[in-house]
């Protein structure tokens, strides 16, 4: 069963991977850059591995510089998340996703948030403005 949801393109591209949800805004700087395990104390993602995931989170936070540097280091080590699904936009995260070519969308059909669980296989077609939950 495949569930299809509409969304708004931020950074074009396609990606597929397991869903990982965060209640908290994300700054990629406090991550173990060799494993992709998130390290920020008290954060919803603390101790979770973001490598290869489609991250579903409210938006970015933190300094204008270290967000991009964190994403770059994750990418260089091959442990970057594959795509971003956010609910609010900030220029730092948006421009970092665009230059690092990470597919990113916002404004997803609210039904998506009711359905999606951690570990669901997600296909993100940011260019076409579609998110799919792929279930057996």
């Amino acid at each position, binding site marked *: 069963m495949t569930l299809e949801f509409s969304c708004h393109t931020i950074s074009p591209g396609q990606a597929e991977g397991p869903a990982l949800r965060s209640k908290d805004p994300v700054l990629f*700087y406090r991550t173990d850059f060799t494993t992709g395990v998130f390290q920020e104390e008290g954060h919803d993602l603390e101790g979770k591995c973001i490598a290869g995931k489609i991250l579903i989170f409210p938006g970015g*936070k933190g300094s204008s510089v270290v967000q*991009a*540097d964190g994403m770059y280091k994750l990418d260089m080590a091959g442990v970057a998340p594959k795509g971003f699904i956010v609910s609010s936009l900030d*220029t730092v995260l948006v421009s970092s996703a*665009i230059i690092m070519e990470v597919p990113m969308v916002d404004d997803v059909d609210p039904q998506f948030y009711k359905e999606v669980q951690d570990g669901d296989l997600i296909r993100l077609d940011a260019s076409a403005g579609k998110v799919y939950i792929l279930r057996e």
Partner: protein
Amino acid sequence: MTLTQYQQEMLDGRYGKGKALAMRVQKTIGEGFRAQRMVPITRAHVALSAQEADTWFARKLRDAGAQCAVPPTVNPGYCLKYFQQMGRVDEKSSALMRETHQVYQDLGAILTYSCTPYLFGNIPRYGETVSFSETSVTVYANSVLGARTNRESSASALCAAITGFVPEYGMLLDENRRGTVLVQVDTPLQGEFDFALLGMNAKRIGPGVPVFAGIKPSDVTTEALIALGAQLNVAGMVDLFHMVGVTPDAPNLERAFGGRQPERTVTITREDLEAQRALLMPQKYEQADFVILGCPHYTYDQICRAARLLKQAPAVVPVWILTSAAVVDLARSTGMAGQLGESGATLVPDTCVDEAPCWGHLAGQRGFTDSPKCAYYMRAFGVELDVTTCENCLALAAKGGKS
């Protein structure tokens, strides 16, 4: 988003691959934010960092032949001359700093290496549309000067400098610049440290455009406004604030809120400030092995205050004061730099606290700073600081620490 003919030609590569890449990034950002058009800028400030990602992207633009249409000022990396002389930076990181310098010079940037461009070298007038990145620069330009900029990243500000345009959204539009949250400050504020503590309450204040009321304008210095803006953006994300009787769009409450009612009211008491102060001393060091000041870069007045305090009680442990090259030059010509040197403090130009190659060796030592932002950044590479007022920091530096 509709582009003008000139903007479209840039995107199509008529002015080279570099401009086309910058325009493509900006067009994508603009469409993400549902901007209708792109508007010209007159100034830019790029948060250069001498970190890999930043230099990688700048190099990509340079190699594609990009030149800045609006030469931007830049953030600090670090002063190679000083840190090489100290034997602190290895060949790999100094090569990156040298390359960063070269790449930005090739792009046509003005290499000011300062995080306070609004004090020297890049000062917008009221209402001017600019593209400023850097945690504390954006909020100062919007709030204190009344210029208009979004909270740009280093990359988006560099693209704007190259094309000379920004997509029109967010802080560029009147409707988003009205105050939305009334922050009633119920305690007198003394010195910039109290303003930093106020900024640390950003989470309580929440999202929106805060309007600070109840602050006595005569208590508000330039340094206080810098500290407030910086800490609001460490604890939260604030593009713009108003302060009644102080900032240009807030002669009174009604104007600050654009004639509307606040969406909510938050009251900040002395207890709220003291609660933040308690959180700033996680290590509870009783002695100092070093002190680091100047995040954001110290102003000339702050340097004079440090010199005055150290004259009474000279430092016996290292004291680094980070500032712009412009302020170092001024301090040299007025004799203030010499006086600081005699009291055991060093003025370091062009340098950010967030440079692991320069400061990483301090991990494990007992350090103090007067900036919560500084402590937040240096923790990323293992340097744990306690945060207290400049007066306390320098008193501890005079008392010494090595046991």
